[in-house]
């Protein structure tokens, strides 16, 4: 036993054991320290002229722009439509990812047939899909939701399919010996054991859904945070660009926290 374990290896453990309960309540505030410092640096860089204001607007200018758009109600429309697209796209992508991930995780034949194709498709950049999706699915909401679904699909598929493949052989033997039958082994052994992998996949999928939004909203969109950003670029409005980046960061983080919370509740053993 180390006499100094708190300082020698304790941190690894304390990630799980947790620090003092009182201090815990305010730990999340630490997460604001670095961003706050960055905002100050940003302000100084613009204020001292290292970056000109038309290149990088002052933080306050960005807030003003966002506030202005919020005041006219325009902002909420953008946010609402993007949230809606991300939500349905993620839902679709995750669902299909679960189905295909399960099928390929379970059946060697399905894996042999589908996996190489899906592995190849996963590296196709979102922008590359845009012309094809226009062609295949037109300019409606459907095309946008589908493109977002493509983004959300791959991490779920990959993680679930490898997660199922990696379920401890020990436990699969238990299911075999006790003759659980295919369906029950899935329900009681394989799926629960793969839930952590699935949730990692869903977190990744939600992240990629946010990445694909910009490309999706290049498909004939006139609303949405991604549109706002593209529009900001076309109009050379850095305050709008930075504002939409902040919106992406905010909502991306929010949805990530939500999935993390589900993860914490689901994987409690």
């Amino acid at each position: 036993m180390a006499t100094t374990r708190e300082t020698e290896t304790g941190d690894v453990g304390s990630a799980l054991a947790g620090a003092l309960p009182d201090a815990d309540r305010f730990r999340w505030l630490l997460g604001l320290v670095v961003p706050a410092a960055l905002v100050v640096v940003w302000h100084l860089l613009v204020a001292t002229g290292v970056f000109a204001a038309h290149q990088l607007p002052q933080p306050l200018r960005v807030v003003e722009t966002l506030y202005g758009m919020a005041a006219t109600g325009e902002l909420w429309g953008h946010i609402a439509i993007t949230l809606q697209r991300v939500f349905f796209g993620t839902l679709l992508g995750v669902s299909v990812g679960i189905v295909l991930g399960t099928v390929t995780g379970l059946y060697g034949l399905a894996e042999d047939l589908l996996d190489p194709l899906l592995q190849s498709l996963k590296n196709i950049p979102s922008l590359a899909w845009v012309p094809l999706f226009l062609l295949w699915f037109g300019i409606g909401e459907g095309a946008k939701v589908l493109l977002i679904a493509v983004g959300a699909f791959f991490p779920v598929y990959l993680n679930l399919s490898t997660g199922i493949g990696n379920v401890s052989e020990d436990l699969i033997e238990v299911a075999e010996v006790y003759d659980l039958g295919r369906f029950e082994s899935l329900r009681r052994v394989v799926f629960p054991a793969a839930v952590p992998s699935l949730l990692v996949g869903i977190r990744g999928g939600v992240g990629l859904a946010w990445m694909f939004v910009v490309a999706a909203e290049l498909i004939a969109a006139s609303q949405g945070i991604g549109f706002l950003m593209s529009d900001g670029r076309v109009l050379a409005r850095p305050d709008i660009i930075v504002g939409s980046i902040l919106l992406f960061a905010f909502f991306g983080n929010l949805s990530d926290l939500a999935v993390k919370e589900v993860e914490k509740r689901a994987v409690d053993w």
Partner: protein
Amino acid sequence: MPSTGEASKRDPAEATLGSEDPAADPALAVRGLTKRYGDTVALDEVDLAIDGGEFVAVVGPSGCGKSTLLRVLTGLEERFEGRAAVDGVDVRDGGSDAVGMVFQEPRLLAWADVRENIAVGLPADVDPDDPAARDRVDGLIETVGLDGFAESRPGELSGGMAQRVSLARGLAYEPEVLLLDEPFSALDQLTKYEQQDNLLDVWRERGATVALVTHDVEEAAYLADRVVVLGGQPGTVETVVDVEADRPRERTDEALLAARREITDALGV
């Protein structure tokens, strides 16, 4: 029978093998079984036959292939030389539904509570949510002395408690052939005695065939009709000791003491 050691008291494959006389199939039959893992020979030309309703104990030094033998019998090992049959059906043809096994390690589902873990062992045609099934599981929890822990997760159990959950799961299966791999190794004497007697009751009531791997010579002699002593690495059958004591037995029975001495001698202690 060249593989049988010189000290053999009895032909270990005296009962005919299924292939020769299907009508008189022994419950478990192994002939010329050789199992290699890479360069390691775990079992070398093992012959063994166990009649229906018989209680056989298997003892032998650590690493001599006892667990491997059970794994072969239960159909978990796909590649080996020789023949292994349950009720005359080759284990490589899928083995039999009638074989249940309690593994050497508890192998519990980390996310499931004690009740759910035991319910995994319920026969395939029993609905675990059925009140009768629930009662049965609760009865087993009581039998293995875990009252009050029905809702505990494996992470909250002591080593011996986890082992008893695994035992209860095996009993829940009500198999015709029950294989047990050191099921009482982590139990204190009192609990062990209780569970041994409980196992005897189950064996008698259900007329099951039991093969039990153990390191406890007293346990082997007290429980078994015959004790198979494996030896060496690679494992071969050293000898088979008949325990001649009448049932129900007293733990202090003279015949048991004699058998214990015989086993201990064969083990070379």
